[in-house]
C-alpha cells in the first residue's frame, strides 16, 4: 500500500522521564519535498525527528506514543531495523565510522544489506552516492583515505552519501549544518536541494533563514507544540500565528 505522503504523523506525544517534550503533534510530509522543522533550541524538534526512525528505542526513559506512517506503513508494525532501512538519517555532528575509508563508509550499508552481486555494482553505488552528496570531486582520487582525515563539512557530506547509498524513502537530517562553517553549510544546502529529486527530506533547523532557503514546507515547533505548518512561502510571507511571525523575524 502506497501513500501520497512520505510521512504521516498522528497525535505524537513524547515524554522523557517526567518531561512532556512533544505535545500531540500531527504532520504530513508530501513526497519528494524538503520539509523543514524549525524552532528555537530546546523546542523538541530533534526529539520529534528521532522518533520517526525509532532511535528512541534504545532509551527506556523516552516514551513515544501516537502513530507514525512511512509511505503508508505503520512504523510499529515493522522491526526498527527494517524501518531504518527505509529512513536514512544524518546527524547533528558528522559521525562517519572513523576507522573506515571513505569508500567503506559509503559501501558498508549496501555491503551488509547485500544489495549488490558484483564489486563493480558496489563501486557504482558508491560513486553515485558520493556524487549526489557533492563530495565525489573532492575525494574520487583517494577513496582509501580514512574518513577521520576529512574536514567537518566533507565528513557531513560523507554521512549523507552513506545514508543515501541505501536509497531510502526518506532522509532525516538533524541540524546537519550546526557544526559547520559558512562555506561548508552552503555546499551542504546545495546538495540537499539536489537530493530532493530522489528523496523526501525532513530537516531540523534552528535557523529560519535556512528553512526559507531550502524547504518546500515548514513546520514551526515551539515548546513541544506545533504552532504552524504549511508551504514555506506562505509561512514566511503570511504567518498565521503571532509567534511564528516573531520567530521568522528573529525575535524569539
Amino acid at each position, binding site marked *: 500500500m502506497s501513500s501520497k505522503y512520505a510521512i504521516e504523523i498522528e497525535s505524537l506525544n513524547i515524554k522523557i522521564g517526567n518531561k512532556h517534550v512533544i505535545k500531540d503533534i500531527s504532520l504530513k510530509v508530501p513526497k519528494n519535498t524538503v520539509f523543514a522543522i524549525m524552532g528555537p533550541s530546546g523546542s523538541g524538534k530533534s526529539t520529534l525527528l528521532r522518533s520517526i526512525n525509532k532511535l528512541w528505542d534504545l532509551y527506556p526513559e523516552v516514551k513515544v506514543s501516537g502513530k507514525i506512517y512511512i509511505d503508508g506503513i505503520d512504523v510499529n508494525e515493522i522491526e526498527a*531495523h527494517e524501518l531504518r532501512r527505509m529512513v536514512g538519517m544524518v546527524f547533528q555532528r558528522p559521525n562517519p565510522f572513523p576507522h573506515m575509508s571513505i569508500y567503506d563508509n559509503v559501501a558498508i550499508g549496501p555491503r551488509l544489506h547485500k544489495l549488490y552481486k558484483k564489486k563493480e555494482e558496489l563501486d557504482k553505488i558508491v560513486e553515485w552516492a558520493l556524487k549526489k552528496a557533492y563530495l565525489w570531486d573532492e575525494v574520487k582520487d583517494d577513496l582509501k583515505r580514512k574518513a577521520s582525515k576529512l574536514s567537518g563539512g566533507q565528513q557531513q557530506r560523507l554521512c549523507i552519501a552513506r545514508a543515501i547509498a541505501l536509497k531510502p524513502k526518506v532522509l532525516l537530517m538533524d541540524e546537519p549544518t550546526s557544526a559547520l562553517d559558512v562555506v561548508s553549510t552552503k555546499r551542504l544546502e546545495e546538495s540537499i536541494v539536489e537530493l530532493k529529486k530522489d528523496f523526501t527530506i525532513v530537516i531540523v533547523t534552528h535557523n529560519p533563514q535556512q528553512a526559507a532557503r531550502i524547504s518546500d514546507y515548514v513546520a514551526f515547533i515551539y515548546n513541544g507544540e506545533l504552532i504552524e505548518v504549511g508551504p514555506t512561502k506562505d509561512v514566511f510571507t503570511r504567518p498565521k500565528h503571532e509567534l511564528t511571525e516573531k520567530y521568522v523575524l528573529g525575535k524569539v
Partner: protein
Amino acid sequence: MPRLYKLWLALIYIIGLSALGVLLWVLGSILVNGLPVVLKYGIGLFTNNIPPPMFLFFGKPEVGLAPAIVGTLMVIGIAFAISLPIGFTAGILIAEFKHSKIAELAEELASTLVEVPTITAGISIYWLLVIPMHNPSALAGGIALSLIMIPYIAIYTAETYRKVPMVVKEGGLALGLKYSTVLFKVIRGLVLPGVISGVLMALAKGAGEAAPLLFTAGWNDKVTLNPLDQVSTLSVLIYKFGFSSQELWRELSWAASFILVFVIILPLIAISKIMVKKHEF
C-alpha cells in the same frame, strides 16, 4: 615555608624513585640470574624433561623445563577458551545494556570477582573437580585460571565498547542495521584492538598465577598433551623448586622466572600497550 616544601619534594622523589629502584632490582635479578641458566642449558631447556628429585644417584640428568612450559601453555589455553566467550559476552552486557538491572549486577559481579583472592579458585576447583576426578589435571587448572581471567576480559571489553561514542553506534543503526551488526561488524575495526589488548592483559595475568594451580594442576616431570593428565607450570615450578636446597633446582626456578617474565608476560603486555595506542582515535 619554601624550605619545608623542598624537603617534602625531595622525600617524595626519594620514596617514589626507590620504589622504582626496587622494581628494577627485581627485574635485574631475574635477568642476571635467569638468563645465564637459559644460555647454559640452551635449547635443551625448552625440549628436555624436568630432572627427577633423585637425579644425583643416576649420573648426569637431562635438564629442562619443557613440561612446565607446555603445561603453562595448556593451562592458559584452556583458561582462554573458557574465559573469552564468557568474558566477552559479559562485557557486551555490561557496556550495551546500560539501563538494565542485570547489566548493573553483572558489572558488580565482575568487579567483585577481580578482587577475590586467587587461591580461592584453587580450593574451590579442588573440591569441585579434582576430588570427583581423583586427579589434578590441566583441565582443572585451566578452569581455575579461567575464573580469574573472566572478569578481566569482561571489564576490558566493556570499557572498550563504552568508549565508542553513541553517535557512531547510532550512525550504524540509522543504516537499518541491527544493533548486533553494528557492534560486531560496523565498529569491529574500532573495538578490536581494545578487546585484544584486554585479552592479552588477562593472559599475562593468568600466566603468572600459581595459587589457583597449586592443588588443581598437579605436577608432571614429563611433557604431556592430555588435558586430563597432571601438568607442571612455570609458576608452580618456581614455588616448588624455590624452597629447595639443590643448586640445580634453584637454577631452574630462576630460568623459569626469566621465561615467565621476559618471554611470556612482558611481551604480552608490550603488545597489549601497542594495541591500545592504535585503538585511540
